[in-house]
Structure formats: C-alpha cells, structure tokens
C-alpha cells in the first residue's frame, strides 16, 4: 500500500504527537521559572534526537497502518464469504439447480476436452511430427487411395527420392511369444527397416534399435520391445536387455525398448519390432506389406514431395510390368491418424460449448433476476458508499462458491463419463493418446470454474452499477435488468432452448429406437453365455501340404482333441471350432452347381467353416435334412450345408438337398441340409447366402481358428479352464482375443451406442436448461409484478386464474420454440439416415413424444412461480416496495 496521501497523514500525526510533548515539556519548564529560550533548548535536549525519533516513529506507524488494513481486509472478506454462504443456503433449491446444471456442463466439457486433448491436441511423441509423412502406394485399377507397398518399391523409393531426409518402413505380423515360467502370449509385431528411429526422431529408452546389418539379414534375430509390452509382459524389468525369448519357436535376443508412444505411427498396439531381414536384391514387388514412412527434408514442401513421388511411381510403372497402375500418395502422418475423427470431435466440442454457453446464459439470467428483485437493496448499498469493489466481491464470493461446487461435481461427472466414453471408442483412437484426468484437463476444468464464476459474479454488479439511483429510490420499484430489450432477449432465449431441447430429444428417441430395433433383430445366432478365443496353428508344427489335402493329421487331430477336452470341462455345455465367428463377415467363394455349368450371375457365397457342434451352439435350426455329424470326416464324401437364403436363391424349385456344389477346385460335394439364416454381415444387413463345410473335412490352410464355447455359467469365468484345456493339447500355442460374444455384439453396435449416449446426454441437458429458462423467466416476471398481483389478489382476483395466466405464458414460450425445433429436427434427422434402423427420420411417435415431454417439463417448471404468484400476501407485496 503505497498511497502517498495516506503516508502524509501518518507523518503529520507523528509530527503533531511529538510536538505536543515538546510543547508540554516547555510549559512545565516555564512554570519552574525557566526563560522562554532556555526552556525550549532544555526541552529539546531532554527529548533527544528529534529527527531520528520522528523517522523511527513514522516507520512504525506505517507498519501499524498496513497491518490494520490487512486485518480489516481479512475480516471484510470473511464477512462477505459468510454472507455469500448464507445467501446460497437461503436459496438452496435454486443453488442446487445451478450447481447441478453447471456441474453437468463442466463435467461433459471436461471429459470431452480430455478426449480432444489426448487424441488431437497433444503432439505425437516424435521429433517435429508435422514433418512425418506416409508414402502410400495406390492402385488406379481398383481405385484405392492408400495401400502398403512392396519391399522392392520401398527400396526404390528410398534410393530415388530427394524430398526426404530419411525414409523407413514397417510391416505387421504376429507371433506367439514363449518364455520360461509364462503362458504363451500372442504378440502384435512389426518388421522394420533400421532407419525407423531416425525417421521418427526418437531414441530407444533402453538398449538400442536395429542395425543395418540386421535389416539385411547379416545380423542375428533381435527384438526391440515397445514401452507398453515391456511394462505389461516384462514387468518393466530394466534387465530385460539380453534376454532370449522364443517367437514362433525361434530364439530372439531382446536388444532394446522404445519410448512410450513410439508405435503411434504404426497404428498403436504394437508389442515389438524385429528386423526386415531383406536386402534390396531380395526385395519383391508383391506382396504389399511395407508401410513406408518418411521425414520431409527441411525446406521441402508437401506438394513438391507429392509431385516427386508421383513421378517416381510413374518411372517404376514403366520399368516394371508388375507395377502397372500403381501410383504413389504422400500423406502427413497426423492427417491419417487423426483425420477421421477430427471433424467429429470438434463438432462434439462445439456442441458442448453451445450447451455450456446456454447454461451460462441461463444461470446469469437467474442471478440477474434475483439481483434486480433486490435492486433497491443494492441501490441503498451503493448510496451508503459500499463501493463497486465491495459489491463485486460480495457477488463474486457467492458465485465462485457455486461454480466451485459445480466444478467438483463436474470432475466426478467427467471421471464417470470418461470411463463410459473409453468403453465405446475404437481402440485405434486411444492409441494416439489415452484420455485421462491429467493436469492439463484439470486445468481446463479450473479455467471453466473461474471463468464462469467471474462472469456470473460480475454481471449483476455491472447491472447494479448502472442503476439509476434516483429512479430506484424515488419510484420504489427498481428495474435494472435491461428493460424491454432485455426481457424479449430472455424470452427468445427460453424459446431457443426449448427448440434445441426438442431437436435433441427427437434425435435421442430416434437413436434409442434404433438401438432397440438392432437388439431385437432376428440375428439367427445366439450370443448369450458364449465365450470365444483365437489362436493360430503355426506351419512348422502343423504342416499344410497341399498335395495331400485334406489329409493333415496334425491339424485334424488338434481339432478333435481340443474339442473333446474342452467339452469334458464341467462348466461347458458345447464347444465348436470356427474360422469366423458369427459377427465376423469372413470371406466368400464362387461356387459351381453340378449339372448347371458356370453362371456369372450367381455371384459368390459366403463361406463358413465350422465343426458339427456349431449349429447347436449358435442355436441354428436345421430346416431340412441334417447338419454335420461325427461321421463326416475326410474318409467320407464331402458334405455341405447351405442356409435358407442360398437354398432359395440357387434352388428355387426346392431341390437343394441332394444337389452337389463345388468350390476350391476340390470336386463336388453334396448338400445334406438347409439351416436357418445368420446375419453374419452385420445386424443391419439381411443374411447373405452362405454355405457351411465341416472343419473335420476341410481343415483351413490359413491356420487361424476361433474356439467358441457355450458355458453353463458366466462365460469369462471359464476362460482360464478352457485355455488350460487347449494348452493341454498344445502348450506352445499363443491364445488371444478372449472375449464373450455378448461383448463382441456390443462392440459391433459401438457407433450406434455412442451416438445414442451422446444424444441422450445432450438432450437431457438441454431439457434441464429449458426448464431452468422457463423457471427463471417466469420467476422474474412474477417478482417484478409482485405489487400488481398483490393488489389484484387483495381486490378479490381468482388465484387460479392468475396461476393459469402464468402457466400459459411459460408453456406458450416453449411451444413457440418447440415448433421451430421440431421443424429443424425434421431436416436434421435426414443426416442420421445412415445410423437409423427400423425407424424413419420422420417417424411421428418420436416428434410427438419429444413435444409431449418438453411441454410437460415446461409445465412443471412454470408451476412453481405460478404457485408462488397466487400465494402472494397482498400486504407483503405492498411492503416489499
């Protein structure tokens, strides 16, 4: 506090005080008989060093003054806070409403921000990530935009391109990991070129990355772990370097661990990196499994790199016949990784932002209404010199308490909603950065709390300051809330919110109905109490010699033995092996019908390869003929089962049973039965025509099998016993993808579930806001007209009619907005067309239901002020002014 005027005052006081002493001292001496001059000199001498003492005293006085001010300030603050708390308590229902509304708003905004931050805002864990690009190939003939390249193309790109400072590649594969004292684990790996860390600009966290020698196959078999797998499978052991593990039975040395986030560019979920093991001479044009990633040279622009690569691809097309129609496409890594969701996330953020703004306006409105109802009190305050700062502080304490409470609630809401969101969001998204309630996100929440608190706190103050004192005190009816324009703005706000609520409600109803329909559709297969898990039979222990197909004893024996042992388990009802479970669309094959010749119009049939137990497990009814039996082995004639759709389409005359069809060039097989349809191409699409073969007759060459088990109790509880049963047949097999079919079904409906949740939540919030708006506007109107109502009631007006008038006002406001909102909904719902199922965008029940709900809510919200109006004691209303 360095106010010079205050200092002057204190200094003068000190001066006066000391002079008083001197004067008194002089007077005493005069009385003792001293002369005037001598008395003054003696008094001064007895006093001491006047200047020093005066300076000393002045210093201490200033300190004292400072302390007093501070103490006074603290006390005033405590007073204000105490008053604010009492205010909040007095209006506890309103305060609760405000805290709930804001808490929900802050919660959702924070949860969403967490996702946006993790996925979009936080930079990738690479050096200068904006310079990283993918160099895709594409195929003009089939019209693809992005494809992996052949390894030979990668090496050519690397040699010829000038726009990049570094270029590398990776390709995904998987292997089963075997260590001592651990169950076999399925690992998602990549093979990579040693320059990968150079391109990404990262250093290994432990050990080293691959060397050029290893890339070209002149080094040993080495493995570099990613941070995730190091923590998960190796317990973050710092001594992991040098350990030897078996990948698909082959020994690999662990030589390094990558830092966290290194695998984002590879799509996330990578467990380790092994060398490419291929020299340029050995590289091939196909298969295409090399994803090429490069760093733009500083000074090189994306456009010029694109042009260069297109040119190089054209060169290769001319030089190599195999590269016909193969072009190149350079794409920034962050565009690819984030492109899909950017739009959606920002749209969601904008939506939440709108809701938050509406909530803010609503709450501000409520505060204003209250402030203006007490405007006379504020006017008196101001007249007594309360000071703008003081008033501001009073209001601010109150609102900060409310927004603070809302903030705490909001963090809880954010935590819960984040958990829900994470369950429903695809895994690739999370690979970019797991959203969580970290420092940045909490900082965002704090900013919201403070910003809102200040906004609310200051608004009434600003209003109060512009109060016309004269009119407030003179007329006895302070009305400072913006007059005519302000009130029509408020009414528009309420109507607008009602419209928004109506719009969102329609969407929520439509999507809710869609979800219900999807769940209710006749899938054709059961998902309850069903467990599934997958494994790959490696070539080295389960050879696939096509010259003796289907006589593959290792595979056939594995299949039978595994099923036998699993079905022996007490909690298991029935088990089956399949190549694709019912929610996996699988693949198709073209077939020929014996005696009919080729028919290009016939198209292809979906191919399902199963064991006999599958039909009972999935609950597939046999419509005609029979399903597979144990006898249908490799020594028996080939048996095929078709589904009803296939039977009707191929044999409309009903002659399916007994006819023979052929595929894979392995001769014709007899159709022995027709089963009911399964919707294997997703729940929305009708069942495709399909045929089934038995794995005991046609063991698959690919080697990836899925075991499905119907359990007596909770399926996940049987996961461990079933795994042990499989391992008892082959202890080296890595088992992955353990899940229940119910969970798989939920994942299949992810998009709809997420959209449904979002709309439900938003419409709920909009509904609350609309109710709040109606309540606020009507309360304010009633408060303003308190005197008028009091007089009317005193003069014998009917309380009921008064109530009705107010209710009509409120409902009318909502109805206007509703009409607009529903109209907009009709237009906007068309955008939902892709998501809807079994319900039209214009479905009447949705609109009627939405309108009814909204009007009901409006009625309830309006009834409180209406009730209050009719209970105004006339005397009180007159006195209030």
């Amino acid at each position, binding site marked *: 506090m360095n106010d010079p005027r205050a200092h002057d005052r204190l200094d003068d006081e000190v001066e006066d005080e000391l002079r008083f002493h001197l004067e008194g001292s002089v007077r005493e001496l005069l009385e003792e008989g001293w002369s005037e001059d001598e008395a003054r000199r003696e008094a001064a001498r007895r006093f*001491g060093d006047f200047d020093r003492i005066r300076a000393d005293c002045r210093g201490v006085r200033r300190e004292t003054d400072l302390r007093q001010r501070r103490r006074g300030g603290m006390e005033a603050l405590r007073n204000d806070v105490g008053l604010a708390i009492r205010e909040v308590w007095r209006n506890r229902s309103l305060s609760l409403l405000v805290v709930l509304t804001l808490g929900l708003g802050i919660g959702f905004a924070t949860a969403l921000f967490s996702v946006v931050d993790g996925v979009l805002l936080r930079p990738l864990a690479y050096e200068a990530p904006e310079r990283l690009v993918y160099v895709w190939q594409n195929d003009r003939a089939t019209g693809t935009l992005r494809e992996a390249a052949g390894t030979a193309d990668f090496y050519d790109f690397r040699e010829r391109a000038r726009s990049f400072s570094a270029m590398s590649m990776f390709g995904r594969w998987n292997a089963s990991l075997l260590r001592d004292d651990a169950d076999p684990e399925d690992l998602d790996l990549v093979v990579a070129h040693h320059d990968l860390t150079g391109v990404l600009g990262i250093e290994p966290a432990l050990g080293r990355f691959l060397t050029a020698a290893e890339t070209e196959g002149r080094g040993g078999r080495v493995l570099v772990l990613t941070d995730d797998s190091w923590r998960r499978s190796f317990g973050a052991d710092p001594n992991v370097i040098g350990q030897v593990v078996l990948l698909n039975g082959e020994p690999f040395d662990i030589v390094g661990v990558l830092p966290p986030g290194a695998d984002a560019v590879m799509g996330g979920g990578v467990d380790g990196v092994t060398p490419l093991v291929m020299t340029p001479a050995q590289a091939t044009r196909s298969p295409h499994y090399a994803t090429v990633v490069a760093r733009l040279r500083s000074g090189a622009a994306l456009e010029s790199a694109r042009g260069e690569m297109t040119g190089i691809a054209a060169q290769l097309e001319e030089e190599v016949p195999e590269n016909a129609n193969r072009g190149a496409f350079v794409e920034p890594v962050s565009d690819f990784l984030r492109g899909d969701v950017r739009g959606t996330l920002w749209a969601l953020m904008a939506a939440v932002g709108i809701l938050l703004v509406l909530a803010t306006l609503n709450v501000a409105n409520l505060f204003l209404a209250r402030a203006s109802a007490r405007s006379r009190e504020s006017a008196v305050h101001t007249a007594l010199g309360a000071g703008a700062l003081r008033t501001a502080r009073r209001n601010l304490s109150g609102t900060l308490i409310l927004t603070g409470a809302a903030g705490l609630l909001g963090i809880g809401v954010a935590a819960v909603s984040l958990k829900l969101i994470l369950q429903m969001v695809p895994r690739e998204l999370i690979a970019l950065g797991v959203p969580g309630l970290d420092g940045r996100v909490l900082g965002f929440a704090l900013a919201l709390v403070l910003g809102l608190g200040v906004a609310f706190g200051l608004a009434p103050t600003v209003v109060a300051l512009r109060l016309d004192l004269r009119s407030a005190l003179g007329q006895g009816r302070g009305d400072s809330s913006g007059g005519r324009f302000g009130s029509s703005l408020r009414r528009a706000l309420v109507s607008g919110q009602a419209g928004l609520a109506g719009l969102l409600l329609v969407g929520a109803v439509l999507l809710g109905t869609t979800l219900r329909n999807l769940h209710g559709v006749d899938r054709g297969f059961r998902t309850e109490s069903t467990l599934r898990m997958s494994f790959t039979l490696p070539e080295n222990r389960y050879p696939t010699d096509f010259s003796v197909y289907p006589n593959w004893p290792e595979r056939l024996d594995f299949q039978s033995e595994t099923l036998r042992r699993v079905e022996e388990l007490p909690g298991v009802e029935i088990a089956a092996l399949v190549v694709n479970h019912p929610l996996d669309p699988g693949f198709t094959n073209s077939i020929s019908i014996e005696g009919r010749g080729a028919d290009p119009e016939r198209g292809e049939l979906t191919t399902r390869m199963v064991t006999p137990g599958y039909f009972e497990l999935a609950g597939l009814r046999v419509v005609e003929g029979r399903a597979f039996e144990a006898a249908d082995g490799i020594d028996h004639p080939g048996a095929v089962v078709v589904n009803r759709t296939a039977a009707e389409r191929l044999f409309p005359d009903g002659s399916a049973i007994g006819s023979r069809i052929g595929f894979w060039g392995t001769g014709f097989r007899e159709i022995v039965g027709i089963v009911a349809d399964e919707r294997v191409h997703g729940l929305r699409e009708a069942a495709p025509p399909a045929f089934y073969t038995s794995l005991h007759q046609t063991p698959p060459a690919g080697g990836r099998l899925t075991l499905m088990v119907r359990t007596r109790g909770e399926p996940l509880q049987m996961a461990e016993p079933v795994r042990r049963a499989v391992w008892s047949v082959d202890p080296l097999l890595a088992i992955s993808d353990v899940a229940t079919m119910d969970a798989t079904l939920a994942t299949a409906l992810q998009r709809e579930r997420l959209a449904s949740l979002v709309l439900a939540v938003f419409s709920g919030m909009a509904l609350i806001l609309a109710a709040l708006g109606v309540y606020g506007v009507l309360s304010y109107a009633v408060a303003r007209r308190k005197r008028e109502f009091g007089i009317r009631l005193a003069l014998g007006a009917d309380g009921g009619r008064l109530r009705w008038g107010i209710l009509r006002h409120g409902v009318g406001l909502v109805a206007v907005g509703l009409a607009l909102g529903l109209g907009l909904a009709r237009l906007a719902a068309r955008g939902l067309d892709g998501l809807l199922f079994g319900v039209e965008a214009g479905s009447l029940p949705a609109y009627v239901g939405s309108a009814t709900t909204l009007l009901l809510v409006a009625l309830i919200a309006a009834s409180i002020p209406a009730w209050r109006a009719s209970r105004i004691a006339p005397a009180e209303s007159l006195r209030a002014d």
Partner: protein
Amino acid sequence: MTPRIDSSSLYGTLNLLVLKSVASGPLHGLAIARRIQAESDEALRVEEGALYPALHRLERDGLLEASWGTSENNRRARFYRLSAKGRSYLEREVERWIAHTGAVARVLGIDG
C-alpha cells in the same frame, strides 16, 4: 541530580513500565513519561523522546490501542490505553519479573 539511565539497556523493562502506567486508564505520551518518572521516585529518567518509538511498537504489536483525544489543556493529543492482549501480557511479565529478581536477590543474599 538523579542518574540518567540509558533507556536502551532497559528496553524490555521500558515496555513493562509503559504498560503498567496505562493500566489504570488511557494517557498521552507526555503523561506516561511523567508517571514513569514519578512512580520510580525520579530514579529513572528516561530519554524522553525514546518513549515514543516504544509506544508505537507496542501499538503495532497490539498491546496498546491508540486514539486521538483532548488533553487537560484542550489540546489534541494521542492517548494510549491497554488492550486485552496487553493486559494479559502485562500480568504474565510482571509475574516473571518478580520471580526473576527474587531469584537474583536470593542468590545475592539480599532479603526481599
């Protein structure tokens, strides 16, 4: 002439003397000085001015409360009175002082 004792060696004691002198009612600085002189039988003649920084520090530390008033001559003067905090401080310190000097006297073989 009574010996002039330098107030600095009696600083702590000075505080006690000041507090004691206003214990029975508010006084302005001059009156406090005279009372200390009177009650000590002129044995202690404090450098008069040094009283004032002491008074101000006691006020700063909350042991004294000060306000402007009118003196017996109808002049404006600053009066000091004991605060509640000052009163309890005074009582405590007086007890300690008595105990201290009593002990010293016993050591020196002086009867109380």
